[in-house]
């Protein structure tokens, strides 16, 4: 056994050899083991892609064709205001373009044990949800006489959210400088420290106050606690992976976001690659379509090889192409041509598009092999 395995060490991947080891019955004869290895190697070789097979184009066709059948619906959560999810073709485009600003980003927050059974679920959800001053305020008024801004507070809401006026004052003084903040008749009064303030500036300050972040995690606009199977989890609209993972109740292994850029920043490029694969596969599955995962993996690889995520756009992956003509044939040709002329770029005609243009055989499939001759000395 051991000797045969060694023989095949450079012919088969280690994982396959280990798997054979695992499944072989104890005490199998040498001849039988050899037969097994031979059969496995034959299968392995036939599963390999032949040289010259244009995997990229096949991946493009395999994702593109089902894409034409996808619907343009956005999906709404029943009963939750302003909580909708981009699905279908728009979502795929969003992912593959590598957009930084998502239309509807969302998170799935998984929880650690007692919490995943429903403990303090509502409190936790409220703790995560971003609360700004305007959420808990009843009114903002400007006292014209002494140019103070008075903020009325909703007691009930504050109680529900566990916010005290002192906390509000603290967050205001922390986030905007140069103001005297005082509690006044159950509300808050804000006055500038500078002597010569105009009404106009007071108005600007009032608008700024509305966005003061009081509690929760920045960017999480909505929360929706949910029971999936036996487990409770929280779905959010808006995303902030870094801060959510800081929470001790959160299961950091499974919590994800739809914002792939955030994943790249928090968890690194390999995680971003996996996220692209997962997200695209999720959309395709949800539409009842069937695309082999390897096509998606190829696209994700292409987007992340450089170590930084690049979208499949003229600014991203396409701008990396080595051929001028290939770049020019995809959007903004004149820009590419002029820049190429300025730097005196040379097109070696090594890929498909350029060769189609000048009517030469494309170096793929049957066009790839050439004759190599021994030179006479």
């Amino acid at each position: 056994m051991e000797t045969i395995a060694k023989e095949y060490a450079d012919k088969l991947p280690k994982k396959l050899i280990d798997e054979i080891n695992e499944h072989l019955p104890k005490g199998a004869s040498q001849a039988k083991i050899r037969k097994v290895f031979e059969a496995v190697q034959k299968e392995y070789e036939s599963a390999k892609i032949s040289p010259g097979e244009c995997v990229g184009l096949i991946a493009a066709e395999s994702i593109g064709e089902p894409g034409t059948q996808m619907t343009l619906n956005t999906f709404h959560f029943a009963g939750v205001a302003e909580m909708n999810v981009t699905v279908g073709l728009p979502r795929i485009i969003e992912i593959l373009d590598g957009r930084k600003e998502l239309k509807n980003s969302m998170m799935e927050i998984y929880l650690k044990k007692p919490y995943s059974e429903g403990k303090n679920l509502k409190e936790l959800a409220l703790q995560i949800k971003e609360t700004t001053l305007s959420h808990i305020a009843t009114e903002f008024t400007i006292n014209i006489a002494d140019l103070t801004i008075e903020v009325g507070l909703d007691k009930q809401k504050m109680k529900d959210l566990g916010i005290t006026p002192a906390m509000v004052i603290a967050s205001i003084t922390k986030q905007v400088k140069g103001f005297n903040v005082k509690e006044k008749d159950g509300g808050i009064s804000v006055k500038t420290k500078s002597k010569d303030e105009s009404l106009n500036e007071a108005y600007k300050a009032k608008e700024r106050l509305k966005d003061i972040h009081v509690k929760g995690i920045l960017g999480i606009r909505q929360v929706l606690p949910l029971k999936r199977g036996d487990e409770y989890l929280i779905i959010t609209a808006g995303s902030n992976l870094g801060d959510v993972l800081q929470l001790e109740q959160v299961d950091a292994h499974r919590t994800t976001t739809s914002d792939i850029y955030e994943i790249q920043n928090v968890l690194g490029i390999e995680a971003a690659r996996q996220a692209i694969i997962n997200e695209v596969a999720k959309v395709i599955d949800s539409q009842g379509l069937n695309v082999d995962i390897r096509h998606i993996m190829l696209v994700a690889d292409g987007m992340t090889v450089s170590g930084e995520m690049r979208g499949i756009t003229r600014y991203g992956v396409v701008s990396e192409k080595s051929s001028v003509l290939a770049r020019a044939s995809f959007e903004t040709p004149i820009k590419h041509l002029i820049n190429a002329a300025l730097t005196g770029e040379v097109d070696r005609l090594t890929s498909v598009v350029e060769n189609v243009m000048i009517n030469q055989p494309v170096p793929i499939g049957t066009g790839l092999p050439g004759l190599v001759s021994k030179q006479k000395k």
Partner: protein
Amino acid sequence: MAEVYLNSKFVGYADDPREYVRKLRETRRAGALGQSVSVAYDPRADRVEVEAARGRAQRPLIVVKDGKPLLAERHIRQLEKNEISWSDLVKEGVVEYLDAAEEENATVAFFENEVAAETTHLEIMPLDILGYCTSLVPYGNFNQSTRLNAGSKNQKQALGLYAANYAVRMDMDVNVMHHAQKPIVETIMHDICNYDSHPAGQNVVIAIMSYKGYNMEDSIILNGGSIQRGFGRSTYYRPAIAEELRYSGGLMDEVCIPDKEVKGYKSEKDYRYLEEDGIISQEAKVKEGDVIIGKTSPPRFLSSMEDYNLATSTRRESSIGLKHGEEGIVDFVLITENEEGNKLVQVRLRDQRIPEIGDKFTSRHGQKGVAGLIVPQADMPFSASGIVPDIIFSPHGIPSRMTIAHLIEMLGGKVGSLSGRYINGTTFDAEPEEKLRKELQSLGFRENGVETMYNGQTGEEYQAKIYIGNMYYLKLKHMVANKIHSRARGPIQLLTRQPTEGRAKEGGLRLGEMEKDTFIAHGASLLLKERFDSDKTVVPVCEGCGIIAIKDDHKNRTYCPVCGDGVEVNFIEVSYAFKLMLDEFKSLGLYPKLELTSKY
């Protein structure tokens, strides 16, 4: 206090809006207000809208007062005797027109027996919710609405007797059906619009069954015998027009047999049908390339010296001939003058169109299909009584489209043709299906319309009973003869040297971007190159500067426009489009330098 708006402009308040609206309507019915004035009260917004603006759609309804329609027996009798007309009913306030807003206030009964205490109007006829063409679909209330839309759209494309004076008209691109019939299953609309004076289809026997797969995916099987007997035969008319235009300098076109000296003279054979006046003789059978109207034009540019010298002999040939793939018989020749007093010649060609594979047919229920096979009558299935269907229609067309009326029409057609009468199939008001079934049974057939059928080729009985009946079939104007197109070699465009586009120009069939991708996906690299060879050229390239050089065949030398003589020039094979692109680069101010290396 409701706000009152006249033509969407505020004009005042009404204390009791309902009473106010009622009074306004009374005055209108009495004739004091125009019929086109509509009054509507919206209780939710509490406002009265009086509209008299133009451009609103209105529809007529019979007024109901105190649970009784105002249209009485008396009116109908007077109408029948032509003593009163429609406008009298409107004047009298028996019929009034409602617009969309006023309709919201009305409670409309569909039939007279549905009139209740709160009813305000009665529908004149349920059929009037449908338009002209949709009313021509029998048993329309048994169809899905989308099929009614499709059905009425199809009927507009049907061949028929489009105008009784077609023989003396010079219409472009028209068809006339040879033996058009009135449908057996008709609607009241067929009577109202005098359908038998301009019919557009034929009554045929149709069986719903499959036949060797030649009627799958909406295709139909035609009986060759029926076609020989005249089913679906039509004539296609196409005119050719020539005009003697006047040009500056007193020159003008001339309709004549062109001289041999004329520039662009075709060949004597092409002009063989022309009479002395340069116009083709009637009843001449013409094929592609034949000249119909001979015409010459003055030379295009008179400025150059050459033309002065040979002025008289350099007229251009500008005859009207038949284009690629066209043929026909000269039907009618007309010589007249146009508005400017120029001589105008119109020739009408006629072409008999016998149904062939690829012609499009339809029933009146949006069940269009293309002829997939023409079967000799001897091979067609036949029924126990010896009836051979004219058309075999696939059963798969029925379940998903839910055109029940298609099935009922077949039943009705069968009863009608057996008992020799027309069947009333008016939507909402037709002869009930049960009655037709009973009558069919009393005529000695199975009540549900199915019959035992036999295979026409083997004589064996089919296991399944086949649903067979008569229905009205239409031939649509889309015929393969007008659309068939193929090309191996042919004309190319001047600029790009690529094949022309479109049937009219005998164009190539484009192998587009996505088709190209499939070639690449298969790795068929050399096949791909061959496909795109249509514009390949050999260009000389200067080895010095990498720019396209010049080859002078007269002096048999090659030189480079930049480096001059004495530079090595090599020839490369590229697509002409690439050569054009290099030229465009140069016009952008870019220097596209080709670096040549030997392939071997």
